[in-house]
Structure formats: structure tokens, C-alpha cells
């Protein structure tokens, strides 16, 4: 933690702000995952973790290390790129899996057929 002491004030403030924001968002996202009542709502919770939460923290990290090492340290960009490439895939696959599982198992309480996009197989 001695490393943090070397940081100039302006950078520390920026980093701290980003961190606090990111941390709060991460926490809220996870809270959503825990608290929301059904799966189709819960899946929206982590989305904020992935985007804004992760984004804030990564930017904070970039600023922090760039200032600390007095050179541009921006390889966290790679992480962001990877997240942007993988997160949609995971979300859509889990979502689709959930929809068809619920359809097959005819679970009425999950909201799988809300909005008339999907129907239970024998109710068509």
C-alpha cells in the first residue's frame, strides 16, 4: 500500500472517485442478482457490473498505474475489449437457454412468455 502514497493528489482523487463509483455499481449489480424475483430480471443485474462497473475500475487502474509508473499503462484496454466481446455471447446464450428450458418445462411463474414472443408448446 506504500505504492498509493506516491500518487499525486489530483490523480488520487480521480482514481478514488472512479473506484468508489465502480465499486458501488458492482455491488448494486450483484445485489440485483441476489434480490430480483425471477431469472429474466436477475439477468439484468450483472449487466451493469460488466459494463460500467468494470469500466470504471479499469479506467481507474489505467490512470493509477500510468501515473505511478510515469508512462502510459493502458493494457487494461485489452481486458475491456475482451469483456465487450464475451459478455454479449454469455448473456444471449444463457438467456436463450433459460427461455427454452422454461418453455419445455412449462414453468409459468418465470415470465418466459411475457410479451407474447414465446408461447408454451401446446398453447399455440
Amino acid at each position: 500500500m506504500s505504492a498509493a502514497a506516491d500518487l499525486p493528489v489530483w490523480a488520487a482523487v480521480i482514481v478514488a472517485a472512479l473506484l468508489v463509483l465502480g465499486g458501488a455499481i458492482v455491488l448494486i449489480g450483484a445485489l440485483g442478482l441476489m434480490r430480483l424475483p425471477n431469472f429474466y430480471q436477475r439477468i439484468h443485474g450483472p449487466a451493469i457490473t460488466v459494463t460500467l462497473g468494470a469500466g470504471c475500475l479499469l479506467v481507474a487502474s489505467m490512470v493509477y498505474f500510468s501515473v505511478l509508473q510515469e508512462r502510459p499503462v493502458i493494457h487494461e484496454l485489452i481486458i475491456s475489449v475482451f469483456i465487450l466481446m464475451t459478455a454479449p455471447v454469455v448473456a444471449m446464450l444463457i438467456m436463450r437457454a433459460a427461455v427454452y428450458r422454461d418453455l419445455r418445462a412449462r414453468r409459468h411463474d418465470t415470465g418466459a412468455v411475457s410479451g407474447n414472443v414465446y408461447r408454451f408448446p401446446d398453447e399455440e
Partner: protein
Amino acid sequence: MTTVLELAIGFVLVCVILAMLFCAVRLLLGPTAQDRVLALDTLWMCAMLLAVVLGMRFGSLIYFEAAMLIALTGFVSSIALAKFLMRGEIIE
């Protein structure tokens, strides 16, 4: 002012780990498999963020690789699980 930063880092750590805890709760409670998969995926994400934050806490760059690795391959088990749920087998 540096103590602010330290406090902020501490706060983020708490947040991230609490987030992991929430994920774990969802992981334990389910109730459906897709919930668990979602929770696991989020847990991976939190772990990645934890690595980033630990790197900041210790002021070291070696934590970056772990984070990058999670970002790059952490999704694989999630999509494998999702595909298993959807198709019954992951490689057809």
C-alpha cells in the same frame, strides 16, 4: 490525500467481495440452473475485478495477467454450461 485512495481501494475491495458473496448466495439458492450459471458467470467477472483491484492495492502489475486471462477465458465455462442447458450437450 493518499489515504483517500487507500480508503477507496478498501471500499472497492469490500464491494467486490460483497458482490462475490451475493453471487455465491444466488449460486447456493438457485433456484434454477440458469440462475446458477448466471451467478457463476458474475462470480468470474467479480474475480476478474478483484484481481484488478488487488493489483492496485499492492501496486503491482502482475495481477493484470490473471484478470486478462479471466476476461479471455472465463466465459468459456459459462457458455459451456449455457449450451448444456440449452442443447443437452456442449459439443455436437
